[in-house]
C-alpha cells in the first residue's frame, strides 16, 4: 500500500482567520486506494482543512497537488472537476425529491428540453449495484432512513465522477448497525480504486477501518502514523495532548433512599402505538442508573414522561414520594429535577440567545434574575460569567450567541446550567453524543461527581461503553419495557446486547 502513488498532496497549508490560525503549515499525503483518517478534537482545524481541499476556502499559504500536478481549487465545482467529492456531515438533500432527482441535481441529463430521468435512474441503479449501496433510485428522501440518505450523498459524489472522497464525521448520525454497513461500503469503495479521507474523532472506527491516521491538534499536524502500528490510547493522547483514561475512575457508590420511582408507566404515541409499555424502575440517591437500549425503544418518550413533556396514560412517577406524572415541565423542574436533553439544539438551547440568556433558561423568572417583572441583566451576566469560568465553557464572551459555540462547548454550557441548579435528580440523555474524547471525559466526570455528592443520576445512552463505564446499575429498555437490570461488574457486552435485542430477560422487575 505504501508503494501507491499520492493522489492528493497538501503542502504547508496555512489558513488564518481573524484572531486564530486554523491551519498552521499542514502537510498531508493521500495515497491511492487508502483510507486516511484525519483525527482531531472539535475545533482542531479538520473541517477548515477539508473545506480548503473542497474549494470552499482559499489557503493563505501552501499548495495543493492532485495527481502530482499543482492545482488551485477556488470553488467546489473545480474540486468536483478534479475528482474530489465531499460527503457532508449534515446532508444537503432536497427532502421531497427522489433519490435520483437529488443525485442529478445541478447536472441533469437533458433530452430536448426535458430532464431525462429514465436514463438518470438507470445510471444511479448501476452505481448502486457497483458499490453495493442498495439504494432505490425512485424513493423519496423523506421516506428513507438516515443511513440511506448518507448513501445518497455518497452516490452524489460518485455520479460526479469522484475518485477522492472526503467523509466528514460520517458516523455521527448513524446507528451501530448502519455504522457497520458504512464501513463495508467504504472498504468496497477503496477496493474499486477510490481514495478516502475520513474526518472523525471516534478512535474505534479509525482503528477498525483506516490505513493511516494524521492527528491534528490546534491547527498543527502532530503526527501521521500507520494504523497497524498504533493503539487507541496513543491516538487519544496525541489528539488531546495529554493522557486520557478510558476507564472511568470512580469509587463505590454510597446508595441512599430512592429518589425517582416509576411504576407501570404506559404511554401511547399519537397513532395509538404503545411507546411506554408498563415500565418500572427506580433511581436512588448517590447512584447512576444507566438505561441501555437500541435507539427507538422508548428512551426519548421515557425522558419526556419524567420531565413533563409527555402525558402518560397509566402508572405513576414519583419524586421523593411525591407524584409528578403529568405535571407541567416547570412544576417538575421546581422539584429539583435537572435535565440534559438529548437534542441540545432543539431542546437544550435557544441558539439565537446569548450564552448569558441561555444560562437562565429555566430560572429567569425567579429572584434575583427577575425583579418585579424586569430582568436584571447585570445579575444574569454575572451568573453566566461564573458558570462559564467554573465549567470552562470556551466562548469569546457571554454576549455571543449560543449558535457560535462548538458542540462541545454548547454541551458544557447546558451541563453547567443544569448542575448549577443543584438538582436532586439529574437526567442525562445522550450527554456525550457528538463530542470528542476530551469533552466526553469532562462530561462523564461531572456525572460521577454529582453522584458522589449524593444526587440521583439517570443516564440514557446508546453507547454501550459509556453505560458500562459510568453506571452503577444498568437497566435495559426494549420496546418500552425494562427487560433486565444488572450491575456492570456482573455482565458483559454480549449479555447486554442480547437483552437490548429483546432475546434475553434478566433480574429486576423484568416484564412487570
Amino acid at each position, binding site marked *: 500500500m505504501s508503494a501507491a502513488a499520492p493522489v492528493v498532496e497538501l503542502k504547508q497549508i496555512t489558513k488564518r482567520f481573524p484572531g486564530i490560525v486554523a491551519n498552521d503549515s499542514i502537510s498531508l499525503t493521500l495515497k491511492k486506494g487508502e483510507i486516511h483518517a484525519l483525527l482531531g478534537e472539535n475545533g482542531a482545524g479538520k473541517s477548515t482543512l477539508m473545506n480548503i481541499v473542497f474549494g470552499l476556502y482559499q489557503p493563505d499559504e501552501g499548495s495543493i497537488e492532485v495527481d502530482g500536478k499543482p492545482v488551485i481549487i477556488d470553488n467546489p465545482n473545480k474540486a468536483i472537476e478534479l475528482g474530489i467529492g465531499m460527503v457532508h456531515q449534515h446532508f444537503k438533500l432536497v427532502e421531497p425529491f427522489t433519490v435520483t432527482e437529488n443525485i442529478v441535481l445541478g447536472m441533469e441529463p437533458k433530452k430536448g428540453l426535458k430532464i431525462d430521468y429514465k436514463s438518470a435512474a438507470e445510471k444511479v441503479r448501476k452505481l448502486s449495484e457497483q458499490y453495493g449501496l442498495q439504494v432505490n433510485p425512485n424513493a423519496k428522501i423523506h421516506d428513507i432512513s438516515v443511513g440511506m440518505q448518507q448513501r445518497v450523498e455518497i452516490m452524489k459524489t460518485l455520479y460526479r465522477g469522484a475518485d477522492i472522497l472526503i467523509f466528514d464525521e460520517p458516523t455521527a448520525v448513524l446507528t451501530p448497525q448502519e455504522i457497520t454497513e458504512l464501513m463495508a461500503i467504504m472498504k468496497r469503495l477503496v477496493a474499486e480504486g477510490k481514495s478516502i479521507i475520513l474526518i472523525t474523532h471516534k478512535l474505534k472506527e479509525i482503528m477498525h477501518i483506516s490505513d493511516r491516521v494524521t492527528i491534528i491538534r490546534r491547527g498543527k499536524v502532530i503526527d501521521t502514523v500507520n494504523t497497524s502500528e498504533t493503539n487507541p490510547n496513543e491516538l487519544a493522547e496525541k489528539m488531546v495532548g495529554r493522557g486520557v483514561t478510558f476507564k472511568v475512575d470512580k469509587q463505590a457508590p454510597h446508595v441512599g433512599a430512592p429518589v425517582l420511582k416509576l411504576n407501570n408507566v404506559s404511554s401511547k404515541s399519537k397513532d395509538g402505538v404503545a411507546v411506554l409499555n408498563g415500565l418500572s424502575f427506580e433511581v436512588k440517591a448517590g447512584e447512576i442508573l444507566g438505561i441501555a437500549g437500541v435507539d427507538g425503544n422508548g428512551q426519548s418518550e421515557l425522558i419526556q414522561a419524567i420531565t413533563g413533556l409527555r402525558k402518560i396514560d397509566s402508572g405513576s412517577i414519583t419524586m421523593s414520594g411525591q407524584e409528578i406524572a403529568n405535571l407541567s*415541565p416547570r*412544576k417538575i423542574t421546581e422539584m429539583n429535577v435537572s435535565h440534559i436533553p438529548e437534542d441540545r439544539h432543539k431542546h437544550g438551547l*435557544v441558539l439565537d*440567545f446569548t450564552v448569558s440568556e441561555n444560562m437562565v433558561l429555566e430560572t429567569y423568572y425567579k429572584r434575583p434574575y427577575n425583579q418585579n*417583572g424586569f*430582568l436584571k*441583566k447585570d445579575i444574569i451576566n454575572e451568573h453566566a460569567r461564573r458558570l462559564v469560568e467554573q465549567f470552562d465553557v470556551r466562548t469569546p464572551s457571554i454576549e455571543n450567541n449560543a449558535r457560535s459555540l462548538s458542540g462541545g462547548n454548547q454541551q458544557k454550557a447546558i451541563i453547567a446550567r443544569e448542575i448549577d441548579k443543584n438538582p436532586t435528580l439529574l437526567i442525562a440523555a445522550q450527554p456525550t453524543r457528538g463530542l470528542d474524547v476530551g469533552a466526553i471525559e469532562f462530561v462523564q466526570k461531572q456525572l460521577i461527581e454529582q453522584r458522589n455528592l449524593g444526587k440521583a443520576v439517570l443516564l440514557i445512552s446508546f453507547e454501550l461503553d459509556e453505560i458500562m463505564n459510568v453506571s452503577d446499575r444498568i437497566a435495559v429498555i426494549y420496546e418500552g419495557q425494562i427487560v433486565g437490570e444488572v450491575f456492570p461488574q456482573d455482565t458483559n457486552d454480549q449479555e447486554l446486547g442480547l437483552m437490548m435485542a429483546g432475546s434475553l430477560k434478566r433480574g429486576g422487575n423484568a416484564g412487570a
Partner: protein
Amino acid sequence: MHKLKKIFATDSYIVPLVAILMGFLVGAIVMLVGGYDPVAAYSALFKRVFGSPYDFGEAVREMTPLMLTGLAVAFAFRSGMFNIGADGQVIIGMTAATIVGIKLAALPSFLLVPLAVIAAGLCGGLWAGIAGYLKAKRGINEVITTIMLNWIALFLANFIVRTFLLLPGQNRSEDIPASMSMTFLNSMFDNARLHWGTAIALAAAVFFYVYLWKTKQGYEMRAVGLNPHAAEYAGMNVGRNVVKAMFISGVFAGLAGAGEVLGVFHFQSVFAASPGYGFDGIAVALLGLTHPFGVILAAILYGTLTYGSAGMSFGADVPPELIRIVIGSIIFFIAAQGIVRWVLKPFYLKRKKEKVL
C-alpha cells in the same frame, strides 16, 4: 419561515441603508427608461413632503398608522408568527373606537377619548388573539386564520356601520364627537390632520423595545419565537405566549385604527375594499428589520415616499405609481442581502482584508 426570520432579524444597519439607496437607483433607472427625469422627480417628491408645514403635517399623518401596523407585524414576527391580519385588526380597532365615540358621546371628552382608544386597542388585540388561540389550541397556521379574519373584520365592520351607526343617505357613519386631533398645532401646521396617534405610536415602539428585551415576559416570548421546543423544555407555556404575542400585536394594530377614525376622518366609512394599512405594515416591519426603532424609521421612509409620490406627478409629471417600484426594490434588496453585500464587497475588502463576508 425560519429563513425569513434569519434574513429580517439581523442587526446590521449598513445593509438597509445601501438597500434604500439601491432602491432609489432602480427607481431612477426605470424613470430614465420611461423618459422621465429622475432628479426632477425625486426633488419634487421631497419638496412635496418638506415644502410646506401643511404637507409635512399630512406626511406625518400618513406615517402614523404605518408605524403602528409595522410594529404589530414586527412584534408577532419576533414571537415567531406572521401576522398578515393587521389590516383586519385595524378595522376592528376603528369600529370599536367609532362605536364608543358615538354611543357614549354623553361622557366628557377626557373620559370618552381614552375609553374609545382603549376599546380600539383591546378589540384589535382580541381579534388577533382569535388567531393566536387557534394556533395554540388547534395548531392552525396563523397566516391562514389572520387572512380569513381580515375578511370577516371587513364585512363585520361594514355591517355594524350600516346597521347601527349610519349617517342617513350616506355610505358612512355619523360624525364621531370624540377627537384625538392635536388642535393646538393647527396654526403651526396649517390645519394638517395631526393627532395623538403619532405619540401613541412612538410610545408603542418604546414599549415594544422595553417589553421584549427587558422584561421576564418578553424573554419568554423571544424564546418561544426563536425555539418553541427549548421554551417548552424550560417550562414556558408556549400556547399562552402565542396568544399573548398575537394579542399585543393586535393592540398595536387596533390603536392605528383609533388614530384614523378619531384623529383623521372623524367618521368611519363603509369600506368597499380592504384599506391596506396592515399590508403596508408588513412591508414596513420587514424594512425596519423587525426592530421597533427600525420600524419607526421605516414607517417614516415609507410614509415620506407614499405621501411625496403625489408631488412627483404634480411637479415632474411622473406617475406616482413609480414610487411603488422604489419601495418594492428597497424591500427586495433588504430581503436579498446577498446582492447588497456583493455591491459592498470591494469596500469591505479595502477596509479589512482578512474579513470573510
